[in-house]
């Protein structure tokens, strides 16, 4: 009996985990979308005509089972990369994405060299 209960809860747990993985959080998506006609507001924050329409479209796409990336790709195709606050990595903005890592590595290298120099003394 105990084993059956454990198996039941294990399966239930897996189902819940899977459900969470597959469902797209509409609020998260809407917060990453820029309201093109507002100043400094996301679609989630705005109640403009444009934002209301985008909210409807995003919810429709989530109900159709589209992933977060598919929704962004669709809107980028229609409005350009400006619509997303966190733009995808491409050849124009790769420096912006990679620079922090370079700085981190170079900074680490400098610190390492300074420490080694101090030890040698």
């Amino acid at each position, binding site marked *: 009996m105990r084993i059956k209960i454990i198996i039941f809860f294990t399966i239930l747990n897996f189902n819940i985990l899977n459900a969470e993985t597959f469902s797209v959080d509409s609020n998260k998506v809407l917060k990453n979308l820029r309201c093109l006609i507002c100043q400094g507001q996301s679609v989630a924050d705005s109640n403009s005509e444009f934002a209301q*329409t985008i909210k*409807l479209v995003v919810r429709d796409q989530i109900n159709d089972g589209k992933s977060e990336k598919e929704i962004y790709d669709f*809107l980028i195709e*229609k409005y350009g990369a400006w619509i997303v606050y966190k733009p995808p990595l491409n050849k124009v903005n790769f420096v912006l994405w990679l620079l922090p890592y370079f700085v981190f590595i170079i900074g680490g290298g400098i610190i390492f060299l300074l420490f080694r120099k101090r030890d040698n003394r």
Partner: protein
Amino acid sequence: MQKKIIKLSILLLIIFIIGVFFIGLNKNSIYDTKSLVGQKITEIKLDHFSKNKIITGEDLRKNNFTLINFWSSWCGPCRDEHAMLLRLNNEKNLKLLGVNFKDKKNNALEFLNNLGDPYDYLARDELGKHSVNFGIYGIPESILVNKDLIIIKKFIGPISKDDYNYIKNIVRK
């Protein structure tokens, strides 16, 4: 040697910061849809305004050029551009597709009765969802497409006299 490296690093950092500001401040921060020119409009499925019918891309492929105009009776600038649309309706190579955006049917009909109907096709987008397929973010907006449904130009805001001349020149070529 170490001093030289430090000096060079500071110099590079200053050049980098000036470069970022130079590019950033010269960039136009006002959003426009110029990047969409040359793109093909893929999914066209619009509900006909009065008939139980769907207007698709195939309907527009029959025309040499189509001007897709998004309008509404509650939109002031749409009234301003209406005279230009009526004039464009006389162009042989151009058909006009009007998309009535988030409007009440009666108000839209009254608007057309009062000001004239320039449209060859009239569609309705009650919730505004179809307009997203065309990259619309406010009205009035118009898109000039060719036979292959490739965007030739997007007109944000009402069609001006210059826009009218531009369209006329393109469709008469």
